[in-house]
């Protein structure tokens, strides 16, 4: 069982899983980090990203790179209406945001049921080949996801470290009042953070739907994954989300491959429970 090809395959599977989990968690942790909002509607926005890609790439046959970025931008833009009407009332109100956004999640999901019915749909794969490398199998659509995850992470890192808006975002995350006194338009920064967070969430949802299946209820699993990854890595920490996603992805791959699904679930959730007991702020988060 512990042969080189199996170990190699488990590593490749872990990489692919980690990419999905990191993407799914990024938007969630960004909203919390900047606005202290626990976005229980995270899964719903991921689902909307899936439907947007379904129409852009699956129905209207827009070229894939334009479809996947364009559909996520569209969801992020339209979601600014919800930012104004709903999210803005919950900034820096963590507990109220949980309940309010849970309600928003249900509203979005069941509106989607009315519009699109409950049937699961599939989105055509971006690439359909399978590469064989040194006894390991790499589906090319998973390579696309890994590539997109790395690109998004790199682009986001460049944005927050090399641009003025990124610097303003970090300052606002540290202390919104001091940032305002320094002349930063914090309302604009909140909108920008919201837009970027929903863009990343919609993108993650589009790729998730393309890899698995699309339905109004597909967002439940990404929400659960986002929670676990973010708790592991630290709420509000982008590097923490990346680390948490990688840890969860690789542990799930190796444990499931060598010990089965039950052991994998037990250990994964057991680690999360232990972390909450001994280090509740996560691996890279800051104690409150």
């Amino acid at each position, binding site marked *: 069982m512990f042969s080189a090809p199996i170990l190699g395959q488990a590593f490749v599977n872990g990489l692919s899983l980690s990419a999905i989990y990191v993407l799914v968690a990024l938007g969630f942790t960004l909203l919390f980090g900047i606005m202290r909002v626990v976005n229980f509607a995270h899964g719903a926005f991921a689902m909307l990203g899936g439907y947007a890609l379904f129409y852009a790439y699956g129905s209207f046959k827009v070229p894939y790179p334009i479809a996947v970025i364009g559909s996520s931008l569209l969801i992020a833009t339209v979601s600014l209406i919800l930012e104004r009407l709903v999210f803005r009332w919950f900034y820096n109100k963590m507990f109220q945001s949980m309940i309010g956004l849970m309600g928003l999640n249900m509203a979005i999901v069941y509106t989607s049921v009315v519009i699109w019915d409950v049937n699961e749909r599939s989105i055509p794969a971006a690439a359909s080949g399978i590469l064989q490398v040194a006894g390991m199998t790499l589906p090319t659509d998973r390579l696309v996801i890994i590539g997109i995850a790395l690109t998004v992470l790199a682009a986001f890192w460049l944005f927050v470290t090399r641009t003025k808006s990124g610097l303003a975002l970090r300052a606002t995350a540290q202390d919104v009042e001091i940032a305002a006194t320094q002349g930063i338009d914090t309302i604009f920064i909140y909108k920008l953070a919201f837009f970027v967070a929903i863009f990343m969430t919609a993108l993650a949802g589009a790729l998730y739907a393309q890899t698995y*299946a699309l339905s109004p209820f597909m967002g439940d699993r990404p929400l659960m994954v986002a929670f676990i990854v973010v708790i592991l890595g630290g709420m509000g920490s982008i590097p923490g989300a990346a680390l948490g996603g990688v840890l969860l992805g690789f542990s799930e791959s190796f444990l499931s491959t060598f010990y089965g699904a039950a052991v994998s679930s037990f250990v994964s959730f057991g680690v999360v429970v232990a972390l909450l007991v001994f280090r509740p702020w996560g691996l890279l988060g800051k104690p409150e």
Partner: protein
Amino acid sequence: MFSRLKLFAMLSILLFNGNAFAQEELKIGGIGPLSGGGTAWGLAVQRGMQMAIDEATKAGGIKIGGKTYLPKMVMYDDQYTAAGGRTAADRLINADKVKFIIGPIGSPSVLSVITVSTPANVLVLSNGYAPNILKNDAKSPFNFRVMNSNVEFGPAMVKWYRQNYPQAKKVALIGPNDAVGQSVIPQLEAYYKANGFDVWKELYDRGSKEFTPLLTRMMAQNVDLFDLNSNAPGEAALMLKQARQAGFKGMIWQVGGPSVDEIIDIAGPLAEGFVSLNVFDFSNPQAKSFVDTYRAKWGDGVINAQTPGWYNGTKILFEAMRRAGNLDTVKVRDALEKLEGYDAGLFGPAVWGGMADYGVNHQLMMKFWIVEVKNGKLITRAALTPEKK
């Protein structure tokens, strides 16, 4: 003038009230998964029932003991879970006062529903593969199974496979870690071993979408055959797709489901060569009228092959009510048990069986088919009938 108006009003009231008493509403409960991976099956329950109801309504209602009843569906989503089934049954029985339920489809849900329906003397016509849906100390006084379970089609299918693929040695079974998987996997394991197979098995948490690590584990066991068994359409389709993407070259088939159309939709060309149980032959001339009616109502989308079975079950229930001449569930139950030979139009004469396996003859024995995906279309490999024991 006012006295004429009053007379007219009184006559109108009498006329409309008279009409209201001519046809009473008869609520028929429905339970099935209308969300999540099992949605295709829940829609099959809903639409199959609705077609039977529409037919009865078009015929002027069901004549039961001198009264005419217009059936009306009241359906709830059980999310394919025990808790969902229990909640749905509670609502139907206690709030909606329903005495007849069609569904559910998943064993966890059925087992939960009958804990509520049996004490309330509510008749349940369900699916679900767990044997103890029918085999229990109470001898299932008010529940019937109107679709084949693993016990009915499993032995015949595995025997057919052994006869047609004598070289296969080892089979993999991956199923959900709930009442469905925990009852079906041991049954199938026994059938495969009786036919000379080695069996490797693994369970996963229902709701999972990523199976690649488990499939890598499966491929390390050098299996020849992968049976999707009792997995819901969404999960079965993803397992097949991910198995092929992971490089699995052996045959993939499903002794269960069926989920063929959903698998073709989600797995696309990767579904080529997939073999499966199918519970209805849509190419049969008898099916044309059914298919035309379905398409007129719900368009050109996939018709899940369980839909005709639920239509059949609902029609059988209506016929039992008619023969009982009464809506008392004990009398309808007795009429149901004596309904052998009644042909609802799609599956031939009804046959009840199951005494040897369950201790009660409440299992409808239905013809089934084995189909294969070739160039994106289904071809029939065999037509089989369960053995009445």
